[in-house]
């Protein structure tokens, strides 16, 4: 049997499983199997490459010890990291892995460029123009994705702060054009004396990736990660061009296209445009929003844990609104305990899940599911908004912007137009927060000053534990 045909088959299997996998990943019932199928296809394509690949002259690959060494270390470290990571840290983990993919694409370009340089003296530049274009594209996109993902990772785990300076957007745009200009110049007229400009592009792309993500607020990181994810897809596709490799090409373009759509869908869930996320970051209109809102302020009312226990235990229906505060405090298990306890007392308990509650869409579902909260108790925004009117008590656990009425009635607010959970229709609203500090959008929340709202300050986990103890002793 011709091994080359076998390799083609393994790539075909890879491509088909990627398409099937993505398709199944967009349905809750099949998602897990879809991920598994794509993983199997990837393994087939990788194994095929290692053992069956032949270059133009029919030589097999060598350096097996190096390849297997890298594969073994990568598998071990990747597996451990992915297994050990806390549920709350998933988003930053995805960002980190995405950055690895981008770096991989960038490194391929660097090595391939190194192979081209010695040929410059003898070969006509027009003969290698095609390869150069894909090498530069892979380098720029891969490096931007790598540097950007690292910054996004740092932002999500709190190591990197938002940073912007006047004219940053203009400078970024100029940098991008300069990079493309240099790349274009090299494609047309590369020779041994100007080949060093390649490394100028590399440095520029890395810097661009950093400056691109730095000014964007932490709450928008999921969108940024999704965008960088599709970037890496395109960078992988560049490798497909370079080696005329169909599985890299299909996989890369597929992720590039799906990732771009997903980015737009995520923006839509927050009712904002992608452009608005990328340039009109929350930071810009933070002060305007805060001052406009503070007029609606006034005094807040505090409530004790025992009073809260009373309110909840004698309610007919309690709706819990989880937010990032719950995730940070790792309070999902004790939250489930509270739910079971109230359930035993005949109180109906459901969860209201805002699509962008937490730091990523679906974050709360994942978190609560980890604590064994039943899937049908998690209600989406559209289902639950009608329910608030007939609900006695709403318990908000560390959510803020997703329940801010300013999104509905204050056109000056930066989050105006975002669909929210209409908790103010319930009879009583109890808000658990660590302090009066504003949420991620950096704006005040008029809900906290409404007469039917009571504040229950403290760490979500601690407060819930006390609450559970109080209700038990009732």
């Amino acid at each position, binding site marked *: 049997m011709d091994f080359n045909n076998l390799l083609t088959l393994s790539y075909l299997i890879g491509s088909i499983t990627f398409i099937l996998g*993505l398709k199944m990943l967009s349905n809750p019932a099949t*998602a897990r199997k879809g991920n598994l199928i794509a993983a199997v296809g990837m393994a087939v394509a990788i194994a095929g490459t290692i053992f069956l690949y032949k270059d133009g002259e029919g030589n097999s690959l060598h350096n097996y010890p190096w390849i297997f060494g*890298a594969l073994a270390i990568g598998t071990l470290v990747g597996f451990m990291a992915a297994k050990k990571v806390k549920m709350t840290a998933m988003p930053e*983990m995805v960002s980190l892995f995405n950055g690895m993919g981008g770096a991989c694409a960038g*490194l391929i370009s660097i090595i391939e460029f190194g192979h081209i340089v010695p040929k410059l003296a003898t070969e006509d530049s027009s003969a290698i123009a095609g390869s150069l274009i894909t090498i530069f594209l892979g380098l720029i996109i891969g490096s931007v994705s790598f540097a950007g993902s690292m910054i996004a990772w740092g932002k999500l785990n709190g190591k990197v702060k938002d940073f912007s300076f006047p004219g940053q957007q203009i400078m970024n745009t100029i940098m991008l054009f300069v990079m493309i200009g240099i790349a274009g110049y090299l494609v047309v007229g590369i020779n041994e004396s100007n080949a060093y400009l390649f490394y100028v592009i590399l440095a520029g792309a890395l810097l661009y990736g950093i400056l691109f993500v730095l000014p964007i607020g932490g709450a928008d990181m999921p969108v940024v*990660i999704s965008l960088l994810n599709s970037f890496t897809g395109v960078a992988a596709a560049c490798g497909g061009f370079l080696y005329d490799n169909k599985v890299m090409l299909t996989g890369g*373009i597929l992720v*590039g296209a799906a990732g771009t759509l997903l980015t737009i*869908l995520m923006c839509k869930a927050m009712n904002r445009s992608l452009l608005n996320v990328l340039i009109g970051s929350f930071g810009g209109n933070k002060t305007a929003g805060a001052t406009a809102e503070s007029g609606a302020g006034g005094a807040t009312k505090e409530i004790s844990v025992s009073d809260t226990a009373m309110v909840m235990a004698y309610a007919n229906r309690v709706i819990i609104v989880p937010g990032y505060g719950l995730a940070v405090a790792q309070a999902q298990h004790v939250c489930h305990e509270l739910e079971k306890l109230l359930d035993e007392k005949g109180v109906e308990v459901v969860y209201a899940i805002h699509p962008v509650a937490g730091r990523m869409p679906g974050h709360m579902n*994942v978190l609560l599911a980890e604590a064994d909260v039943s899937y049908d108790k998690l209600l989406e925004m559209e289902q639950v908004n009608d329910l608030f009117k007939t609900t006695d008590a709403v318990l908000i656990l560390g959510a803020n912007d997703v329940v801010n009425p300013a999104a509905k009635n204050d056109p000056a607010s930066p989050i105006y137009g975002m669909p929210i959970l209409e908790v103010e229709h319930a009879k009583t609203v109890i808000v658990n927060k660590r302090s009066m500090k504003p949420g991620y959008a950096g704006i005040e929340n008029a809900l906290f000053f409404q007469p039917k709202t009571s504040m229950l300050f403290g760490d979500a986990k601690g407060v819930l534990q006390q609450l559970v103890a109080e209700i038990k002793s009732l």
Partner: protein
Amino acid sequence: MESILQFITNNQQIIYIVVLMIFLGIEVIGRVPSVLHTPLMSGANAIHGVVIIGAIIVMGKAEGENYLALILGFLAVLLGTLNVVGGFVVTDRMLEMFKKKK
């Protein structure tokens, strides 16, 4: 103009693949519920780890005495593996949480 037309003719297969894949990528995830946005992003993240194949090819072709290419290639395969393995495992862990309780 002539050279552009020639380029399209020479690479028509690849161009067809790219165009069809763009539409397919958009079509395939078009109706994803927002609950699945994060796992889907993570799954797509793992799939673009296919770039590792390029890294393996580069690594396997490197001459034994070209240490720079060997080291960079080693790094590329390593990072690509992290992307693939970590990506799929993280996605699986996220989706594990979605299973309904019996």
